[in-house]
């Protein structure tokens, strides 16, 4: 099990917003290399002229009537917030 040469684990971890340890990077690279090696088989299928399937039963343009309805109460929406103050979710400073 070796990682494919072009699996840049640092870049993918960054895109995934996952802080990986050095040990995880090595382990996941090897495991994913083995899975990607299997997935490579897809390249053997002739898909010329085949449309992609996003859903087994595609539905299009499902509209809801534009009617105002009550949503979650503020207390319910905040109940699971990691930090809150004065009906707001507290987050670390975004701008200096």
């Amino acid at each position, binding site marked *: 099990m070796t990682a494919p040469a072009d*699996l840049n*684990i640092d*870049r*993918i*971890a960054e*895109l*995934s*917003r*996952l*802080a*990986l340890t050095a040990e*995880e990077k090595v382990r*996941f690279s090897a*495991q*994913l290399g*083995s*899975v*990607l090696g*299997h*997935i490579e*088989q*897809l*390249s053997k*299928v002739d*898909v010329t002229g*085949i*449309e*992609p*399937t*996003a*859903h*087994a*039963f595609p*539905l299009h343009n*499902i509209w*809801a009537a534009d009617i105002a309805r009550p949503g*979650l109460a503020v207390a*319910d*929406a905040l*109940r*699971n*917030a*990691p*930090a809150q103050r004065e009906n707001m*979710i507290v*987050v*670390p*400073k*975004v701008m200096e």
Partner: protein
Amino acid sequence: MSVPLHFQSIAELSEHLAARRISSVELTQAVIARTKAVESRVHAFNSFDEPDALAQAVASDSRRAGGQSCGALDGIPIGLKDVIAVSGQPLTASSKMLANFVSPYNATVTESLQSAGAVLHGRLNCDEFAMGSSTENSAFGPAHNPWDLTRTPGGSSGGSAAALAAGAAIATLGSDTGGSIRQPAALCGLVGLKPTYGLISRFGLIAYASSLDQIGPFARTVEDAAIVLGAIAGHDPRDSTSFKTEIPDYRAELKRRRGPWKLGIPKEYFGAGLDPEVGAAVEKAIAFYRAHGCEIREVSLPHTHYCLDAYYVIATAEASSNLARYDGIRYGHRSKEAKDVLDVYQKSRAEGFGDEVKRRIILGTYVLSSGYYDAYYLRAQKVRTLIRRDFLNAYREVDALITPTSPLPAFKLGEKSADPLAMYLCDIYTIGVNLAGLPALSLPCGFTAGGLPIGLQLIGQPFREADLLATAHAYEQAHDWHTKFPSL
């Protein structure tokens, strides 16, 4: 009553309740007592709320006393996989990320069961975010198979299967993205139904891979599965992928639809990797249908070999997108070590997610990333078209397909956990169904010499669950596998 209450079917118990031989409070107490007696060994539950369940049972009994009973499910204890929202109750997806999350609203299936009078009992263990085939990816520890506690009950809905097999619920709900209802049903000797994509609302189901996820029942009998399906099926404006389709009386249809059916045997499902005892049991079931007057035909699903690959591209791509919402900001785990916003995202996710979830997010991110999208994701979606076409071609010749559910009976806990690819291969007979959006169920078709249950998979045509259930019912009526219970 020779069979204890906690091992009886919904059909039996609803008659006892209607005849006032038992009350819902008595039944719920019996199920809770059983839950307490077995839970330390089975670990099927992430949590259960005894006072809340008993209050629901009291309400059911008073409805009945007032002549307002809601039907067959009124007063019946039903457990939900811990990815289905119940307002005011914990909802964890077996993840540290949501360890302290309390659901602020109900899933549509939760409301449907409540309207039918069911007593919602407990939130059932599963692989983290429904990713896995053994429940070993649960952040709270694996569930154990009641037939052999050293083995997995399967996954991802392993807790739903283990609880029911152990008598800690009368029916349960799970979710099935690549086999997560059917495989644990097979490994625990139960009926497990994955309905057609779009038949059941996904509103309030924690999303894993949205184009594949579907909620469905675990039950002791096909009739019970029909009863639960009837309660939860139907269009829901809150799920835009939910279909408007006629919902028949599935239970009544069991008696009306008697076959004989034309049944297809996909030759690709009986090759290398199939355990000989599982293969032999499935062959016997095929022989039963032949003797029952069904025409049995070999069919071919030529792209079967590519199902696993297409699935792991599409499912992980969708998962990487769906799980982006767990960012440590609005809900879920937030790292105490984080110093700025990017740090909150990266550290909260690193601390909150387990290994398999991280692996799938990374794989999904990779296959969607710039330069690889066409080679992996778009190609997998095209292969998905071919896989779906294979099934629809087969249905020009036959009414349903018969296959094994899982290539193996229940395997030992720890046996496959170090090798993700070996674990993924557990799903080879179930994932094509999800890619094609079809209904399929697993029902018991025997035991290994070592006493482990074996599952038979029947795959049906879109939105024709009534036919699928009737086909399964014909087999079940002639066999007694469903009357065997594990000794715990």
